[in-house]
C-alpha cells in the first residue's frame, strides 16, 4: 500500500540511477543548459514537420498516452511494469497544470487591462479586479515569507491584511454565492412545479413528499400513524426515505450504467483517433 513498497517499474531503476540524478554546481547548470538545448532542437524539428506528419504525430502521441494507463490497469498488480511511474507522472502533470495558470491570467489581464486603458464603461470594476488580485498575491506571499507574528494569534501587518482579504472577503463572497441557491431553488420550484403533464406531476409529487418528510412540520401530518403498525410505511418520513433509497437510487444507477458506457465509447474513439469533429478534423 505504501508507495515505498511498490516495486520499481520497468527501467525505472535505470533511469533513476543513470539519467535522472540530482546534480549540483556546474554539472547542474550544464544539465539545465543541455535540456534547454535539446528542447530548442525538438521545437525546431517540430516546426519543420509537414502537415501530414503533424497529424500522424498527434495520433501516435494520443495512442501512446492512453496505452500507458490501459496497460497499467489491465496488468496484474504483482510485477506491474508501469505502476511505479504513476506518481512521477502525476507530479509532472500537476506541475504542468500550474504553469497553465498563466493562460488564464493573460486572458483576464487582457480583458480588464483593455477596459482600464480605454476607460470604457465599467472600467472601475476592472480596476477593482486588478486591486484585489495584486493585494491578495502581495499580502499572501508577504505573510508567508515575511516576518512572523511574535505571539501566536496576533497579526503582523501583512498577516492582518491577508486575514481581511481571505477570511473577511473571499470566505464571505464564496459561501454567499453558494447560498443564493436557497433563493433560486425556491423560485424554480414555484415556477416549474405545476400539474401540467404526467411527467411534471410525478416530479412534483416526489419532491413534495421528500420535502415534507424532512422537516418536523411535515412529519406531524402523518404522525398519527403508529410507527410499528403495518401502515407505518405511509408515514411521510418513511415514504420519503423509500422514494430516495428505492426508486431514486435504482434510477441513478441506471443513469450511471449509461454514462459509464458512453464515456468508455468516447474514450475509445479519442484514444484510437476515430473521433470526428472540429478539434480533430481541422486542417493543420
Amino acid at each position, binding site marked *: 500500500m505504501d508507495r515505498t513498497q511498490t516495486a520499481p517499474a520497468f527501467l525505472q531503476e535505470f533511469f533513476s540511477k543513470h539519467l535522472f540524478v540530482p546534480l549540483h554546481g556546474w554539472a547542474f547548470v550544464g544539465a539545465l543548459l543541455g535540456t534547454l538545448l535539446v528542447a530548442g532542437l525538438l521545437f525546431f524539428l517540430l516546426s519543420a514537420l509537414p502537415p501530414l506528419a503533424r497529424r500522424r504525430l498527434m495520433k501516435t502521441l494520443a495512442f501512446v498516452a492512453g496505452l500507458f494507463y490501459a496497460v497499467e490497469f489491465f496488468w496484474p498488480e504483482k510485477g506491474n511494469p508501469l505502476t511505479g511511474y504513476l506518481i512521477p507522472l502525476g507530479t509532472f502533470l500537476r506541475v504542468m497544470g500550474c504553469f*497553465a*495558470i498563466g493562460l488564464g491570467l493573460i486572458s483576464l489581464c487582457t480583458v480588464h487591462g483593455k477596459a482600464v486603458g480605454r476607460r470604457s464603461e465599467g472600467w472601475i470594476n476592472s480596476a477593482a479586479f486588478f486591486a484585489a488580485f495584486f493585494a491578495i498575491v502581495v499580502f499572501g506571499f508577504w505573510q508567508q515569507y515575511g516576518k512572523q507574528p511574535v505571539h501566536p494569534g496576533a497579526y503582523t501587518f501583512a498577516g492582518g491584511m491577508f486575514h481581511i482579504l481571505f477570511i473577511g472577503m473571499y470566505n464571505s*463572497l464564496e459561501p454567499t454565492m453558494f447560498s443564493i441557491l436557497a433563493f433560486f431553488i425556491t423560485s*424554480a420550484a414555484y415556477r416549474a412545479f405545476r400539474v401540467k403533464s404526467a411527467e411534471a406531476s410525478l416530479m412534483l409529487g416526489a419532491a413534495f413528499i421528500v420535502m415534507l418528510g424532512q422537516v418536523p412540520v411535515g412529519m406531524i401530518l402523518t404522525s398519527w400513524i403508529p410507527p410499528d403498525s403495518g401502515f407505518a410505511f405511509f408515514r411521510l418520513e418513511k415514504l420519503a426515505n423509500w422514494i430516495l433509497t428505492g426508486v431514486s437510487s435504482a434510477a441513478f444507477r441506471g*443513469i450511471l*450504467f449509461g454514462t459509464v*458506457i458512453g*464515456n468508455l465509447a468516447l474514450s475509445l*474513439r479519442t484514444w484510437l483517433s476515430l473521433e470526428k469533429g472540429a478539434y480533430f478534423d*481541422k486542417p493543420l
Partner: protein
Amino acid sequence: MKHADPFMAVLLPLLSGLILVNILRARRGSDLFIRKIPGIDAIGEAVGRATEMGRPILFSIGLGGIDIVTLLAFEVVAHVTRLAARYRNRVIVPVVDPVAIPVLEEIEREAFASEHRPEGFNADDIRFLSDSQFAYAAGVVGIMHREQVATNFFFGIFAAESLILAETGQHVGAVQVAGTPSALQVPFFIVTCDYTVIGEEYYATTAYISREPVLLGSLVGQDWGKLVLLVLAVVGTLLTTLGAALPTLKPVADVFVKWIGGG
C-alpha cells in the same frame, strides 16, 4: 479498484469490442437508426431565437477542462458557433480551466472561417473567469445580465452552480438548452431549462448532430453494451433469488456473485 479484477478483464474488452465492431460496421455503410432526442433538435431553434432578438448566445462548458466529458462539449460549441456565424451572431464562452482557452479559441476561429466570416471571431468572447467554482458562477451571472443573452447552452460537467446559472438565465428571459452526464444536476436543469439532455443522451449529442457513421456506429455499440449490463443484472438477480430459495443452488450463485464482485 486499482487494477482489473478477473471480471473486469472480461467485461471491459467485451464492451470495447462491441463498440469497435459496430463502428467498423457503420463505416462500411449499414443504415443506422437513432431515436429522437428533442433537446438536441432544439439547438438550432435556440440559436435562431437569439438572432431574431439580436442578442448574443452564452455557452457554458461547466467545470471541466481537458477531459473526455468536456471534449464532447467542445464539439457542441463548434456546432453552435457555426450556426451563430451563419446568422451573424456571436457565442460567449466563459471557462473555468485556463487550458480550455486555446482549444476554444481555435474552435471558434475555425467555425467562423468555415462560414466565410473570419472577421466575426472575437477572442474576447472566450472568457476565462476563474478556476474557483463560485467565482465562475458570479462572473457568468454578471455576463448574463450585462450582455442580456438571449440563449444559454449548458453542456459539460456541472455541480451545485448549475441552478445559479440556469435560474439567472430564466431571470433574463433566455431560451436554455442543457446537457450533462452529472446526474445529480439534471433535476435543476429540468426545472429551469426549455430542453434538457439527460445522462447518456449527452454522449449521443455529436452523433445526433453530425450523423457521422463512426459516431452512429459507436452509439449502436453502446446500446449493445447496455444490453450486456442489463442481462447481467437480471441474470445475477435471478441467480441470487434461486440461491436464496433453493439451498442446493446457493454455491453456484455465490461463485457468480463473487466473480462479478471482484473475486
